[in-house]
């Protein structure tokens, strides 16, 4: 690594993660298009990934243990895998629901209600 590059504090990354998570939460709460809700969910998952990365970076700096620093990175890998599985099943669900109701507006999905 170049010696003249000054590393940034991990708290900055954590703050960015917080802002992105808040934006994702707003999207999940306010959007009615199911795909837009899903996209907001992806923003939230990625802000969590960013927090994992920030703490991996922090523990690498603290020299706690090499394994502890790696755990954060490995968790990001798992989160991405789970997000991929979730996107696959979710989008298949939306296509099935669209065939049923001709819309993916979540306010219209009340077919489970007595």
């Amino acid at each position: 690594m170049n010696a003249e590059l000054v590393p940034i504090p991990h708290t900055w990354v954590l703050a960015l993660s917080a802002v992105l998570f808040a934006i994702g939460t707003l999207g999940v709460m306010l959007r009615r298009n199911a795909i837009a809700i899903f996209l907001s969910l992806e923003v939230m998952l990625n802000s969590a990934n960013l927090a994992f990365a920030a703490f991996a970076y922090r523990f690498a700096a603290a020299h706690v243990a090499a394994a502890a620093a790696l755990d954060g990175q490995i968790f990001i890998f798992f989160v991405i895998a789970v997000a991929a599985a979730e996107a696959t099943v979710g989008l298949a669900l939306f296509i099935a629901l669209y065939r049923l109701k001709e819309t993916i507006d979540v306010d219209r999905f009340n077919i489970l209600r007595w």
Partner: protein
Amino acid sequence: MAAWVFLAAAAVAIVFACLAVVVRNPVLNVLSLVIVFFAMAAIQVIVYSGAILVLFLFVVMLLNLPRRRRLGKGRPLQAVAGILLAAVLGGMVLAAAAILPAELGAVLPGAAAGGTATPIGRALITSHLFVFEFITLLLAAAIVGAVYLGEREMR
């Protein structure tokens, strides 16, 4: 130098995350999310933009949805609750970031000697082997589930 790069990437990520959430055109939402992921980590382009978001784009274009009503319109209670929840959840992490000592990070162990991918890959198939195998099972189950749900005749 690194700080400016980070701040620029952070600004791009926040602006395009807002666009991805607020704009009513679903195709624009997906495309701005691609830019968010690129700003956050270029490596994510491989899995996220390359696979997941292409899937999203495919579904958006397949369904050919009409544009929806304005964000939060007609649901004032939910709008207020959403803004409160976002403020509380985001504020908690922000507060944690403010309380934690702003120590400088460092490169991961092994980054100097041939990149970080080697220790990560090794840890993945040794100490995290069970979870790794479980993830493969999860992905297989997701594929089967998606194929079943996507069948034209719902049984």
